[in-house]
């Protein structure tokens, strides 16, 4: 494994109050991004294997989801969950992930990962606990 991590911010764990949400952005470098987004109980909530774009955005909301690009939390209040992005570097050399807690707009994760091996994969987790 030859993954280089540049961390600007990684709080590792975050709490979400009612109607707060995490805003995810994924910026792959040139190529064909292959990745999936999962939580502890739901594998592959989103996954991309052959749909290259320079940027992907979605949200995780503590409340009912208004559209398909928003994921509702699924664990009871106070019970920790892990949401994570599983990255594959076969056709992309690097990814930048940013996660902001809204509406306060606090950056909780800003990480860039670069791989030197095509076979490399790497998970990027974030522990999330709802509070209200």
């Amino acid at each position, binding site marked *: 494994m030859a993954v280089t991590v540049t961390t600007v911010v990684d709080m590792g764990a975050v709490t979400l109050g009612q109607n707060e*949400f995490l805003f995810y952005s994924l910026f792959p470098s040139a190529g064909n991004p292959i990745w999936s987004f999962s939580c502890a109980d739901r594998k592959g909530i989103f996954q991309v294997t*052959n749909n290259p774009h320079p940027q992907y955005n979605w949200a995780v909301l503590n409340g009912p989801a208004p559209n398909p*690009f928003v994921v509702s939390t699924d664990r009871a209040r106070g019970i920790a969950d892990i949401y994570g992005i599983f990255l594959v570097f076969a056709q992309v050399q690097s990814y930048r992930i940013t996660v902001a807690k809204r509406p306060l707009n606090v950056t909780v994760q800003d990480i860039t990962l670069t791989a030197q091996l095509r076979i490399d994969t790497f998970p990027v987790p974030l522990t999330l606990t709802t509070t209200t």
Partner: protein
Amino acid sequence: MKAPFVTVILLGLIGMAQPVRAQQPSRTVDCRDPKTLNELVFCRIQVRLYGKLSNLDPSRQSEAPSITTNSTTLADKSAGPDVLAASINPSGLSGKSQVPQTTDASLTATLYGVYSTWRQREPFNPAFYEQNMFWRRLSVSIAPSYPQNAAQIQQSVSYGAKFLVTHPPDPLDPSNRDNFAGVSESLRAAGGYFGDLLAIQEQLKSEYQNHSCAAARAAGIADSLNQNFDGAMAMPSLFVPYRACITAADVEFIDDHTADTMTALKNLTDQLRTVIKNIETQPQASFSFLSKISQGTGSNLYRSEFVMDRGWESQSLRWKLHSTTNASFDFSNSKTTKPNKDTFRLVEALEIPPIPPRNPVVETNHLTIGVSGEGDWGDNQTPTYKAQGKLKITAINGFDIPISVTYANQTGKAKRADVKLVAGFAFDFAKLLAGFRE
């Protein structure tokens, strides 16, 4: 499962993230020194997985080259070891036959191993490994042969050099994109990792809360762990001193808990590897030059050889057949009045694991059976035909015990049929080291 998306619409609804970036040093994930719980768990899986996967490549040769007197193989493989391999075939384990009894030893190294030593770099550093692919294509070997009875035959030493000629195209080429569409299901399954990670984090947290940890107190991080254990697991400044609190039982818990994820990652890795391999290497081919220099009046043998390896696999039937083909031109240089010999030699070897592991990730393939055939044609000689049956026992990854029985319609000296049993021990040090790291 939802479709892939680009949320231009979302940007209008909830605004664009604009995090402020600060200058931070980059660091490469080092599995010997994990800086977060995520790195520790994922590295643990990767290290175990590498140890298992490296045993599955049948195109690497750790046995003595076929040119040695007492070799356990008729066919040479197209690739040498990852770094270094050694073998010994003691004469005491060979059956008596018309072929002289010798003890053969061999040492094979890729020039990559030599180069990494010269550069004083760790050969298993993945970045260094990837950057120096060219050196991995070249391997050299030396194989001295010691006669059991000095009067029976003169000592000889075999030398060899092998160059892997396949030149892989780049998987990053956009034209290869469609090849990766098939990894979708494995990618989804690999997402199970986050469930495992949560369970492990909860277990460690529970243990910490119930039993505390002297090392954490000594490092002055106890308060931080009490306040935000989950967050601390992602912060190198807290996780690194906390690592002293992780016990052998915790590591066992991690291994037990990630067994399913290992399988999912193995499938994903297999698929990625297959796709990348299909792009990069179709049949793997190499050229080699071998020479057996005999002392005294024994003939010297020079072999120029083309080697091709190819595998066929059926996922549904769980069999994996590996084929190795050698075509060589041998020149035997007599030191006496006997005429020199030119020989064309063709060898085909097939290998199959008779009991394929149900789960190759957690089970080692301990047994491989093989059959080979060889034909030698040339001037000043009657054709020689050989058939070989072989059993290879893999005691642990990187340590093989090959046992072969070879029938020849004639040998060089006696014009009558001969049967010879040979057994030996072969070591591939990269695989062994991977096992010890585990």
